């Protein structure tokens, strides 16, 4: 039933009330009638007039909207930062039992960073970067040890990882706040537009680190440990003579179908990635031409749409980080003409830093079989093969 009744003025009626612009006959424009229509048209037209005659108004309006969006996300980022910081303080107090309040020191460590070397003259930059990273890492660990005197060595490593996560989230918050305030101060729409565009990725990273902090506080394995887990699975029960070859890195030996397998991995169960590049370099320099194959196993960032735990093979060195460890293996393998092979387990960035998923743990078993097949398929009995399991060994023995 039609409840609208048209009046001559062009204003429709619904249950006796005025209903502007409803049920108007074609050709009868709004505002052609009484005062109300005229006011409504004016209200409608004013913004368009402003946009037309004052182009800056449009930009200001857009800027305000973007700033509000960034501000909302910045507030969420602060909540995440505070949560991770709170968890870090609680864990340091619980495991480290410091005699003094560690809050001030933790806040200082959250802003601690290593200045990268000058790259204007890139000659020798790998050595400089290696040195700086080692000094930074040692200093950081020393500071963590000082605020957690009761923590065991592996717990100090876990606490360093946890503080690392706090540092990352804190840096994200500070950088976003910087661009937000700078954009607001200078009214630079292009600046705030750029930060708004990358905010979804920043929030995803922050959320991943928030979840990672829970795993790190409890010493649970994380997705990044997949490579180390593969090496530990192969070595389990069969390895012998496990010894430290570089800081936080061990090597052990085992026989695999007549081949001598040298297994390199970080020293678990504390959270560390060790110095696998340095370890492989030392081993090759010691064994020289006897080494016939180097295999690295690591987690790989998957592409969107790909399944977690998918195993890929590649030629080359699979190690992330600064590139120093990768460089060392490449150099030594080139020097002695040793083939380098890689086995990779696909996972997302979030999965790499959060507690290990079942699919990744299962993929590690599958990858172990794949590594064994590569060793037996690519080398003859009597050969020496280096297997480097790359990744964080938190919760992996």
């Amino acid at each position, binding site marked *: 039933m039609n409840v609208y009744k048209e009046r001559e003025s062009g204003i429709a009626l619904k249950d006796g009330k005025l209903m502007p612009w409803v049920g108007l006959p074609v050709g009868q424009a709004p505002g052609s009638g009484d005062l109300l229509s005229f006011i409504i048209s004016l209200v409608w037209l004013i913004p368009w007039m402003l946009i037309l005659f004052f182009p800056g108004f449009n930009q200001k309006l857009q800027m305000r909207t973007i700033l509000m969006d960034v501000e909302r996300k910045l507030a969420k980022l602060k909540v995440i930062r505070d949560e991770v910081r709170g968890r870090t303080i609680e864990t340091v107090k619980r495991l480290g039992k410091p005699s003094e309040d560690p809050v001030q020191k933790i806040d200082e460590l959250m802003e601690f960073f290593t200045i990268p070397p000058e790259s204007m003259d890139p000659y020798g930059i790998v050595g400089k970067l290696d040195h700086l990273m080692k000094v930074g890492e040692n200093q950081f660990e020393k500071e963590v040890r000082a605020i957690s005197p009761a923590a065991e060595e592996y717990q100090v490593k876990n606490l360093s990882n946890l503080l690392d996560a706090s540092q990352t989230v804190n840096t994200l918050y500070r950088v976003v706040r910087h661009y937000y305030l700078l954009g607001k101060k200078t009214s630079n729409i292009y600046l705030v537009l750029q930060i708004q565009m990358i905010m979804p990725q920043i929030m995803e990273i922050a959320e991943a680190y928030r979840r990672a902090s829970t795993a790190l506080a409890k010493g649970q394995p994380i997705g990044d440990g997949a490579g180390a887990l593969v090496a530990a699975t192969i070595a389990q029960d069969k390895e012998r003579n496990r010894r430290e070859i570089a800081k936080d890195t061990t090597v052990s030996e085992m026989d695999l179908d007549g081949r001598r397998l040298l297994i390199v991995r970080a020293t*678990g169960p504390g959270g560390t990635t060790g110095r696998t590049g340095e370890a492989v370099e030392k081993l090759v320099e010691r064994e020289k031409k006897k080494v016939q194959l180097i295999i690295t196993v690591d987690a790989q960032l998957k592409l969107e749409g790909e399944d977690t735990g998918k195993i890929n093979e590649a030629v080359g060195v699979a190690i992330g980080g600064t590139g120093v460890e990768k460089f060392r293996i490449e150099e030594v393998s080139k020097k002695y003409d040793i083939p380098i092979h890689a086995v990779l387990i696909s996972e997302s960035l979030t999965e790499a830093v959060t*507690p*290990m*998923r079942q699919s990744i743990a299962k993929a590690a078993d599958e990858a172990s079989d794949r590594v064994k097949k590569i060793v037996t398929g690519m080398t003859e009995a009597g050969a020496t093969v280096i297997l480097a399991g790359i990744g964080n060994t938190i919760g992996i*023995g």
Partner: protein
Amino acid sequence: MTHLICLSCKTENSRPHQEGDHVFKETGECPKCGGKMMITGIYVEEPKEKKSR
């Protein structure tokens, strides 16, 4: 979850993760034979995928 296996009778077991657990650590006794248990894996179950309409 922490997943364990008995080194004697191969009974598999699982329990919530406890602080100090790590993969390949020998811990606790087998509920069946009293043998040593070893942690074979520490991982979280896959999140259930949302059903599409």
